[in-house]
């Protein structure tokens, strides 16, 4: 059954690999696309990037960070259970072309999401350099997979415990200072990383694409929740993206919209914890109107 959990394992602290049964998504998936998951019947629709798929086995893989209610709920689900809903693949696939030397930089969940990009750019005949960033050495995951398909893997850590000290941006700058040339750059992961990395490639005139993670509801272009300003135009990240030109994205607006629900997200998180601790119950009025 689509949505059955095959694996839901913590790979490094706070990051899990989720493997789901989804034969139809697996046979259609292309690099750069995402899925939407609803953890349980009262859940919201949460997007995750596709980090791998296996059309023969009928499975898909995503990596997620435990960030709030939805991902907390997911983290507690066991193999054999099913998510309430699973839809995909969504979004335009990344445009894969032969550019020459391609830099793919990832951090956070992007360490997972970068794998299909690296693989596809490699298959298209590029020389692919994968830049993998983490706060510290032991939070880097998915490295073996990326190594299988990249020409070169460069690790960078914020605390300097492994590889280059710094983030994707600093690593890119270090490589550029060494005289390395890139014909195309692609960043996926947390918004801050994507922004500063895009700003870093701009002076070099390197075409740069980012996979944005705007807040979404339906994921089919129906609601406009995911709108982002790119080159002065409003675009819907779920259907026009999630990939956009990193030099044209209005980053202030992206950050602002991402923060729209922070108080509610915190409330929902605390509420879930309190309910689990038995200190609040759903109010009777609410129970009454519940389906």
């Amino acid at each position, binding site marked *: 059954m689509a949505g059955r959990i095959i694996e839901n394992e913590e790979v490094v602290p706070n990051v899990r690999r989720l493997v789901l049964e989804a034969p139809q998504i697996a046979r259609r998936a292309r690099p750069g696309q995402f899925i939407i998951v609803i953890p349980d019947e009262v*859940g919201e629709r949460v997007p995750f990037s596709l980090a791998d798929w296996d059309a023969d086995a009928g499975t898909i893989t995503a990596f997620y960070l435990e960030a709030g209610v939805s991902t907390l709920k997911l983290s507690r689900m066991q193999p054999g259970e099913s998510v309430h809903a699973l839809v995909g693949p969504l979004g335009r696939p990344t445009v894969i072309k032969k550019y020459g030397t391609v830099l793919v930089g990832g951090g956070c969940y992007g360490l997972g999401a970068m794998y299909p990009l690296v693989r596809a750019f490699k298959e298209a005949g590029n020389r692919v350099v994968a830049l993998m960033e983490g706060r510290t050495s032991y939070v880097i995951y998915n490295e073996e997979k990326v190594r299988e398909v990249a020409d070169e893997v460069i690790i960078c850590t914020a605390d300097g415990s492994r590889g280059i000290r710094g983030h994707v941006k600093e690593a890119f700058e270090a490589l550029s200072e060494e005289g390395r040339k890139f014909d195309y750059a692609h960043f996926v992961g947390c918004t801050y990383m994507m922004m500063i990395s895009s700003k870093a490639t701009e002076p070099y005139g390197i075409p740069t694409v980012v996979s944005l993670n705007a807040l979404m509801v339906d994921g089919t272009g129906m609601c*406009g929740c995911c709108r982002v300003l790119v080159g002065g135009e409003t675009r819907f990240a779920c259907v026009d993206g999630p990939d956009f030109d990193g030099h044209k994205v209005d980053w202030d607006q992206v950050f602002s919209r991402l*923060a729209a629900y922070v108080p509610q997200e915190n409330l929902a998180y605390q509420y879930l914890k309190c309910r689990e601790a038995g200190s609040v119950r*759903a109010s009777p009025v609410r129970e009454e109107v519940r389906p």
Partner: protein
Amino acid sequence: MSKRPQLTPRERMAIPRAKMPEQDPAARATNFREVPLGLTPEQAMREAERCLNCRKRPCVAGCPVGVQIPEFIALVAEGRFVEAARLIKETNVLPAITGRVCPQEVQCEGNCTLFKKYGGVSIGALERFVADYEREHGLVEIPPKAEPTGKKVAIIGSGPSGLTVAGDLIKLGHEVVVFEALHEPGGVLVYGIPEFRLPKDIVRAEVDYLVRQGVKFEMNAVVGMTYTMDELFDELGFDAVYIGVGAGLPRFMGIPGEDLNGVYSANEYLTRSNLLKAYLFPDYDCPLPPAKKVCVVGGGNVAMDAARTARRLGADVTIVYRRAREQLPARAEEVHHAEEEGIHFQLLSNPVRIIGEAGRVVGMECIRMRLGEPDESGRRRPIPIEGSNFNIDCDQVVIAIGSAANPLLTKTLKTVKLNKWGYIEVDKNNRTSDPRIWAGGDIVTGAATVISAMGAGRIAARSIHAYLMGLPQPGEEGAEGEQ
């Protein structure tokens, strides 16, 4: 219909129009339960006595699907409610829904002989009554099914038009699969129209009814992404496809400030509330933060639904509409309900800019309008009055100025012709330029009504059936069942 108690027309006209019991405005403005409570059997029978059984049946002419109105009303008058429901269902498969949401005052009731002087017969309320009666008493019967034909039909979209096609074709013995992008079936009936106007139990009951007849629903399937059209035909073996994907692309105004936090399309606002049950946050996870003052831009049903939802979430709500009250396109009942619930109307006004602070909405600048000459739509065109700008304080703005064709599926179709606005072109049988594909509802007409989407579905179903069985197309030489 001679068995009816013999009242004279004068006596019939003397019966006052039934007043549907409603939740008190003050109470209902804080809950999401249905507002009109439905007629009692006595009220329904009394209301039915008002019908004059006009020979020319003007009411029927006003109904887009030609419900046999005087005939079903005669059955109501005799207390034969279930028979009345079944008679309606011969032309309209979702009477519990249309009875609630049709704009009756411009359709059946607006055409009723009694409309001007006495108020039309409450056809919608009666339709709702008999359908509720049948359902609530567990008297809905599964209709007999024709022998399996071995033909398979895919329906894309589970809105009213898709559901109608499914219902018609399953009875004729075809295998029917409905593909739906969202996780709940019903289209606008579940994600757009709020609970207080159309309880979701009713939509669910209609879907269950189709499931019991053998219709398969595949949810979370976005055709164009999860499946391609070619795959439906070539790999999954469908013989025909019906496209009923609605007009789900929100329109924005293109004014400064629309990307601020706190600005929503009506689709987003209503989807959060209805489909994802944000009004039950945090019992449900999807948030829709409460606002103090909400401005809703627009004057249709969608605007009324958004405004009344915001009111129930605790806000002080103003509807901003660029024409005058008489031009509000919403159903009369919705406008009336909105007014009763304390929603303000800022008419003849149009937003020019949304004002923000630290990324959030704090107000909206509007300009006053006056009405000029009639435009193509026959309505007087609103013209801005220069220098009349004014500000409204608000912390949320909901934009409900209409929707357009969502290209997600249509842009992947090579053989289906679209018009210049991206809607699908069809012939009089709702067949597209690809002879294996039909389309209907909002994706053909642009945003319209539930009943017209159902009407299109009915026409398409007949044509699909003829195609599958190798019969002449309806309207062609030798076609059966021409009416």
